[in-house]
């Protein structure tokens, strides 16, 4: 056990810190619309240009081939610099790495990593949320192409995405987990319509996506036909990793801001204890993520244990935002700090997106604790 940076890690951290000081955007990420897309694209491009994307991806596909713990160092430093989170392309990339053919990896991974091609994840549907395997979007095989019909929802960044990794039903007669396949769909194809969803906090990150007789070449099938469920589960196991999706950096950043404000103000004792509790939760999560990432040093997936990380991250995120709302008092409830309430409202997504906390608990109970399967 060693929590200290090895010499290469220390050198990496040092370079990254200097780079962030010179390159991190000073302005907060805009709430939505083209400004948000533009900032995201520029930030992504800058990170990629200087080699900070895909740290733990194989070098053959544009990554740096570093051990998984470098993702934690990246989150630490990005958070401490107050920079926007690193774009979370990692989980889609993992699906492609694991299930894609060599040709598909070479075609898709570099663009995904560089941000040149924007991707979205087409999994959830109006009637397939927690019960994801009941996806109804159809992909019918007609000659050398699939024809896709259906609807996706809660699709992040779909409004400016170029491609979608789509989970669709290719074999309606097979048992529900076995009839699914994953396809790459061109978001600019005719028959694809995106409608942004205005969220409770005013953001328009999420979208509805409609597919009406969208043709998709058979060569866009990722993995085998019928392997969609396995691909989706591998994907979400990475989506649940707080460092894999860059969320750890958001917690580090918010804690730092709250502590800076707390030092400047004269907080009463309950507020000081609440802030100390937020520090403890953030530390516990940071240390837990380091342990999880170390375990993945052999290249293994997060697995069912990743649900523990997600539940812990959710606890930390929601606690941090409670403390933020309390500490910022009336300013959070008036025009003076609209971002505080907006971020708090967004924190409620932590226990829903990427699999609800209830789904995570069932995974932990049945697949980690080995309790008998329930309903």
């Amino acid at each position, binding site marked *: 056990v060693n*929590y*200290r940076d090895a010499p290469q890690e220390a050198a990496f951290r040092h370079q990254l810190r200097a780079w962030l000081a010179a390159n991190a955007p000073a302005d907060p990420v805009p709430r939505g619309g083209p400004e948000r897309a533009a900032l995201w694209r520029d930030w992504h491009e800058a990170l990629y240009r200087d080699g900070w994307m895909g740290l733990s991806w194989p070098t053959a596909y544009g990554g740096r081939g570093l051990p998984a713990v470098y993702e934690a160092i990246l989150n630490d430093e990005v958070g401490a610099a107050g920079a926007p989170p690193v774009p979370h392309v990692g989980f889609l990339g993992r699906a492609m790495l694991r299930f894609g053919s060599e040709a598909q990896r070479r075609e898709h991974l570099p663009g995904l990593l560089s941000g040149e091609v924007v991707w979205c994840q087409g999994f959830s549907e109006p009637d397939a949320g927690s019960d994801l395997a009941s996806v109804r979007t159809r992909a019918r095989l007609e000659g050398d192409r699939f024809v896709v019909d259906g609807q996706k929802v809660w699709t992040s960044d779909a409004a400016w995405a170029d491609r979608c990794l789509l989970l669709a039903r290719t074999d309606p007669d097979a048992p529900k987990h076995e009839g699914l396949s994953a396809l790459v769909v061109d978001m600019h194809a005719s028959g694809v319509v995106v409608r942004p969803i205005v969220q409770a906090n005013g953001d328009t990150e999420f979208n509805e996506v409609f597919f009406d007789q969208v043709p998709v070449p058979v060569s866009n099938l990722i993995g085998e036909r019928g392997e969609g469920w396995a691909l989706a589960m591998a994907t979400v196991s990475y989506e649940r990793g707080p460092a894999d999706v860059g969320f750890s950096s958001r917690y580090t950043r918010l804690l730092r801001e709250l502590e800076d404000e707390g030092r400047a103000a004269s907080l009463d004792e309950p507020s000081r204890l609440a802030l100390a509790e937020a520090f*403890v939760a953030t530390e*516990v999560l940071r240390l837990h993520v380091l342990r999880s990432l170390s375990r993945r040093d052999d290249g293994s997936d997060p697995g069912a244990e990743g649900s*523990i990380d997600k539940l812990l991250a959710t606890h930390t995120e929601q606690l941090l935002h409670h403390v933020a709302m309390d500490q910022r008092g009336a300013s959070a409830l008036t025009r003076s700090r609209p971002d505080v309430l907006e971020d708090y409202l967004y924190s409620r997504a932590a226990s829903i997106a990427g699999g609800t906390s209830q789904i995570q608990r069932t995974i932990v*109970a049945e697949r980690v*604790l080995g309790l008998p399967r329930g309903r």
Partner: protein
Amino acid sequence: VDVRLSDEQIQLADLARRIGAASAPASPPPQPPGLDGAGWAALEDAGLTTLLAPGPAGGGTALDAALVVEQLARALAPLPYLGTVLADRLLTAVGSARADDLPMAVGFDGSLSAPGTEVAWDATGARGVVGLERRGVITGAVGETLGSADLTREVSAVVNRRQVGELGDDDRSRWLALALALLSADLLGVMEGALETAVGHARERKQFGRPVGSFQAVQHLCADQLVRVEAARSVVWHAAWAVDELDPSDAVLAGRVAKAWTARAAIDVCEAAIQVWGGLGLTWECAAHVYLRRAHLDRRTLGDERSQLASIADARLGAHR
């Protein structure tokens, strides 16, 4: 950064697990606990009682000791290992440690929340007690029992106090960091043991024709406890590592973070375990209350979560104005 145990550490933990299992008391444990001579001899023979001693006999890390503490607690072993390690460390720091004085109780003040010499903690079979009064290292003899709530750990009065030396500030902080880390490790073991026995029950116990562990309400309760346990493990490893590797003040902060988390988590987990056991969990025969009792004594000792949070706030934000 590499947060994985070495093969030697995995073997050490396994050895401690076996010693703990052999020493595990009947449920409920006989009162007063009395020293399990065979169990203590097993710890001595394996070199675990002098694990942290300088020189060839010891040379272990605080993390090694934490792994042993965790495994003994997990089995509810009534062995006075934690008190002995902390007492021995104080004597070592002032150059008066002697291996044949073990086992040894460690001293705390009357509130249990701070170092001191009013209470001999882990006094089962102890040949003496060692505590701190400010910087002074004080030895004493074990007096009358105070009737411990923890059925696996004796606490007693202290008589015949005598100062044997003084600690520097850094040594004092290091010792405090070690004590916080090892108490947190004990809490980790306690919650781990409480959860695994309760989960075992949930697999077997049937109602409505099905194991109760197949019901989501029970599953989710258990899953939340596993999150607490695994997070505790992550923070305990760091606190123990910090004792040997960080500046004294950072090591103490790491210890307080671990204690703040484990003190609350252990009570939550042990109470949830009673809930999973149902009516059986309320009986004297079920080990669930033995875990909960041990968790309460550990939680109070050197300060509960609220006391740790107050100190953490001082460290992070500056002293209260």
